[in-house]
């Protein structure tokens, strides 16, 4: 089976069960471990990746259903060595605490910004409600999205 992951053609071995969630193919077979396992039922958003630019829960996406769609993971979000504005904002606003949920948060936010480049708080709440942060970094996630989008005041720069 062929997969397009981060603009690379990846071959998934024949003995991989086609029902395997994309999450585990990425992590165990392609060794892209930035995408995280949190709940396995699509309730926490830690496993969020893009399929043709749309955010999906990779734990709920059997690898056999991906087909020719382009998979983008957190490892492939930066372009030509430049961080995505959200990645930069996440650093500048010092969003992460434990950091485990952040790949999923950033991927989900990146898909949202494509639809809504200038989001309001309400837009952010609607789009990001499926992404759980157990450390409760929510106030900074909100600020960092605004910072990346150039909306509202953005966050205090952590330096």
């Amino acid at each position, binding site marked *: 089976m062929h997969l397009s992951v981060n603009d690379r053609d990846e071959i998934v071995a024949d003995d991989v069960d086609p029902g*395997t969630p994309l999450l585990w193919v990425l992590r165990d077979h392609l060794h892209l471990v930035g995408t995280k396992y949190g709940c396995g039922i699509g309730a926490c958003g830690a496993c969020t990746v893009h399929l043709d630019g749309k955010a999906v829960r990779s734990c709920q996406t059997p690898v056999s259903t991906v087909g020719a769609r382009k998979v983008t993971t957190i490892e492939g979000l930066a372009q030509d060595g430049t961080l995505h504005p959200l990645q930069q904002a996440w650093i500048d606003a010092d969003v992460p605490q434990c950091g485990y949920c952040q790949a999923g948060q950033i991927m989900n936010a990146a898909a949202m910004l494509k639809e809504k480049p200038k989001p309001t708080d309400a837009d952010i709440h609607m789009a990001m409600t499926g992404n759980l942060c157990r450390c409760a970094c929510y106030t900074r996630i*909100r600020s960092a999205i605004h910072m990346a989008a150039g909306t509202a005041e953005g966050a205090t720069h952590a330096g």
Partner: protein
Amino acid sequence: MQAETIAKFAESDAYLAQIIREVEALPAAPAATMGRRGFLKLSTVGGAGLVLAFHLPAGKAFAAEDTPKVINAFVRVAPDNTVTIYSKGPEIGQGIKTAFGLIIAEELDADWKHVVVEQARVNPKVYGYQGAGGSTSIPRGWDQLRQAGAGAKAMLIAAAAKQWNVPAGEITGQDSMLSHKPSGKSASYGDMAMAAAKMPVPDPASLKLKTRSEYRLLGKRYTGVDNPKVVTGQPLFGIDVQMPGMVYANYVKCPSTGGKVASANLDEVKKLPGVIDAFVLEGTGKPSEVMPGVAIIANSTWAAFKAKDALKVNWDGSEASKDSTVAAEAKAKEIAAGPLPKPSTDIGNVDAAFAKGKVVEAYYQYAFVSHQTLEPMNTTAHWHDGMMEIWAPSQQADRGLAMVAAMVGVPQDNVVIHQTRVGGGFGRRLMNDYMMEAAAIAMKVNAPVKLQWKREDDFAHDFLRPGGFHSLKAALDKDGRLDAWQEHFITFTADGKREVSGGNFSGNLPYTTLAPNVRRATSMMPLLVPTGAWRGPRDNTQVFVQQSFMHELATAANRDYVAFLLDVVNRDVPELRVPANGRIKFDPKRASDVIKLAAEKSGWGRKLPKGRGLGLAFSYAYGGHVAEAIDLSVDDKKKITVHKIWVVADVGPIINLSGAENQAQGGSIDALSTAMGLQIGFDNGRIQQANFNSYPVLRIRSAPPVEASFIQSEFSPTGLGEPAVPPLAGALAHAIFAATGERVRQIPLKTLGYSI
């Protein structure tokens, strides 16, 4: 008959209780008196530059033959001018890796841009305590880390003094540069690193540490040192460990603690695609170590998870937990209605105060809750060449090392533990059960094996924050002051003798419930569901009870709560004076200052429309004095909208302002999330919640803005991982009362029909 289970369980629980005591037990006097042998210069590493290590505890001999085993140290100044700082404790989201680096860099006067912070390997011989718990990383490390930085700087200066033939006292170090003004000579730290390594090691006690006015780095905002890796998805966490030839495991235990494997369809499971092996482990029978179960070994995580679904185990539950939260709740009410048992505290004359004063009574309760770190439990273990090599996300890998060595039956030197970044701690990972399981499995697998728990395993096998019940009675004197406080705490016990871990009276609260007459007593109900430490153990629930009931008393006295609270914390009760040089550092002035500032910041006393309320509460816990205020609205369907939270903390000087704000924001919102909606139930010993769809951790739409303020007093700095948690639930309850007139006496509030 559960005698065996009870005995093993009690041993496990006592172990955790001991951990909690130890992590909380800060040395009364900081280790400033370390002798000359406190430092260890490592000149054996060729071309490394200056490498300076410490060994603790002070006075403990460091055998020469151990030196080659010292792979990591505290600080290394390399010839290329890079300063590498080794963070000894685990990063669990509390920001310690950044804070430790900053403390050393401050005294070293290193250029932060050229500082790299790396995770130290587990080696208690070099680093001493390497855990993270009880918000003690900063207070335990403060002097030690400052001396490491100052010591390295002193050696760099000594080398320059020798080379330039000038007095050391005339040389300054700043931004990784040494300079001698009179001669105009200068050199980078890197230029001097090799020469510095040849200098004698200074006596730590002789080093002059900076005063606060001299700080160049501390107190400003810094982004976390691992953030660039976090946001690009680089491997950092335990779950990210990959090894050539690695296999994957899941471990299936009885849903009721204490159940054993009677039989299992192992032959069927072994035939499943991707499954390499399946076998029964008897384990040690202790929840803190390895409980009986079935290990499934597969060629991928998914194959192991699928095999788990196909595994059918016939559990022998004869000795397993039969506990029920519903039954416990009913039983606690019965106990509360009965006579008060023999008090553990009895100061003054409570009964006389009740006879003459205005008496208020109330019954409070709080639910069991689970940790649910977002990274599920996991460990990679490799048994090779008589060595057990482990990669684990643990809050106490150092303690795990000793446990693994004992179980595997090898000397501790044959256990190597690599600390990974930890995807959330909250007290769950003070336990090393998953590490022990991985080690036990690795003994039977001829390859590196990654044990991966499912989220459902994290729910089924946690060490819960115990629920509890408090029957309270207090008296107000004629001036409306707190005159008597009687508290009957109905909690749980594993062994029938002692409260379960995390389920005893807080050691902090006696010093902040200051009344001339105080009586406390404890009743215990049997429990065989594992409990433990949950972010701010005991205080995160008992402060809710204390502050809520005190608010009831202030209301009954027709007094303003802030005035009432200030009165209580400033009361001098001779029997309740804080012992000198003890672990508890409650200070009425620090308490008063945070309470007053929280009142000021939140606009205490301002007129609010109907349905809107302001609440405020205080706690002294884990070394921190914290007051929190909350502004919220409640609609007619009991839906709560939180407009804002104010956190005012005095934890001494702030190391990293950004990190401190993160802890204040995260801690208070975690507490809001838990007080609103989180509850674990169990029936016949089985946990009833299985995943996040039945455990509503708060989402971004409900997260209010949080304004954090710090009173940077002159006391030594203390931690902030926990102190922002305890006051929130009490403030929330006050605000609901102010908004609606309804008194809430139990958490989570969803059990009373509230939502957020």
